[in-house]
């Protein structure tokens, strides 16, 4: 049975370890990009909520580029295009992090902006009435309440970013999917059915990474619904 579905190949040599190492590469790119995106997105979104005309106009162009440009095209532009055009030597992994952060910051900033402007104006007014300065208003009053509204969509963004990292194999990064392909090709003669087993394992790995994140989000939502909201 294991042979028919192609799971047997995983136990040959160090194939399973290689897959895990590949997943490690995917996760490294994801985690760095997600941290950059959430952090800078929070800061940029806060400024956007203050409705400065020039900043918001520039941002809307940026956001539209990110929204309409396939991530793969962005990867190609940065990795193949920019390196040639600007004659800079950029490794594939930093290029991937730049692209994913470029995407994540834009979407995160837009989510933060929307969450912040959804906080009733009365909260800003009462903060002023309590004698808070602008920084205190955001830190103690606005951001804590906005984060609750942010959780579902930002978790969605994070999981989308993680699964989209599978595209980075297209710029030569050997991550989990690429390792999977290599294993299948190397075992073409001995395990002709390997494709299903290997890809199913890759799927399972992505699932095991994204599912807990989504569970945490559900849990937080539930907690805030009962306790705070």
């Amino acid at each position, binding site marked *: 049975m294991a042979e028919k579905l192609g799971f047997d190949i995983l136990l040959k040599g160090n194939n399973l370890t290689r897959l895990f190492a590949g997943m490690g590469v995917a996760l490294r790119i994801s985690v760095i990009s997600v941290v950059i995106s959430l952090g800078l997105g929070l800061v940029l979104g806060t400024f956007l909520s203050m409705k400065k005309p020039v900043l918001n106009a520039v941002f809307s162009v940026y956001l539209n580029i990110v929204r309409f440009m396939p991530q793969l095209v962005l990867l190609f532009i940065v990795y193949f295009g920019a390196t040639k055009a600007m004659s800079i030597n950029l490794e594939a992994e930093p290029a991937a992090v730049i692209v994913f952060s470029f995407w994540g910051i834009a979407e995160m900033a837009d989510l933060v902006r929307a969450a912040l402007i959804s906080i*009733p104006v*009365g*909260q800003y*007014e*009462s903060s*002023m*009435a*309590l*004698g*808070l*300065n602008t920084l*205190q208003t955001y830190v*103690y*009053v606005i951001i*804590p*309440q906005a984060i*609750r509204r942010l959780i579902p969509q930002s978790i969605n963004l994070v999981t989308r970013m993680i699964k989209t990292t599978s595209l980075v194999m297209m710029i030569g990064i050997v991550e989990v999917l690429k390792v999977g392909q290599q294993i299948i090709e190397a075992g073409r003669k001995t395990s002709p059915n390997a494709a299903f087993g290997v890809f199913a394992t890759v799927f399972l790995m992505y699932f095991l990474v994204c599912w807990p994140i989504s569970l945490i989000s559900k849990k937080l939502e539930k907690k*805030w619904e009962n*306790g*705070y*909201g």
Partner: protein
Amino acid sequence: MSAIRLEHLTKKYEVDGQTVVALDDVSLSIDSGEIYGIIGMSGAGKSTLVRSVNFIEKPTEGRVLIDDVELAGLSEGELRKKRSEIGMIFQSFNLLEQRNVLSNVCFPLEIAGVKKKEAKEKARKLLKMVGLEDKEKAYPSQLSGGQKQRVAIARALATNPEILLCDEATSALDPKTTDSILALLKDINSRLGITIAVITHQMSVVKKICDRVAVIDKGRLVEEDTVEKLFETGEILEIFNNSGLAAAGGE
């Protein structure tokens, strides 16, 4: 002595290139320890007026004096300190949803740098005064409107203000709850001697707790007198009818 003195306040906004006059040369003074009503229809400018008192909105012209100190002359830091000495409550309560009742009342004290333990003691005293001592662990979402407003009142009093501004504080509440909140405000006024300015569109509110009342219409102060006088002579009804405010005359 007047706790609040407004002199020739005018506030203009630019909306789509047009100038809207929210306040038009309003002067009034509120004595220390009195409950002063400001009544008018929505859009009459009374919300702008009350926001001028703690400079949440800065008037285009005119002066605001709190205890004879002119607000326009203060630095940002001094102004924030002054604001923290003026309590304010709102129609929408504006509690911090992520904090429980006790922590909401402690909040302004934390900002003022009061020690946690002292802040909690103070907050518990205030919660007792507003009748919510058994709710300190509850979150705002678990409270009724009246209870939320009580928390807001306790929070507004945490920094020992001498002035309390109430912006349509009872407008979101049913008549019975309104009465209980008004009784609480009256109690606070007589027990702590706090000057209270009440902004409302409900005549019943003015009648129940105010000593004096100003009628605002289209940004102008159209009448100011003691409540007794205005209601005794029926003058207030006349004013309301004349300015097309009859609709605001009921609850």
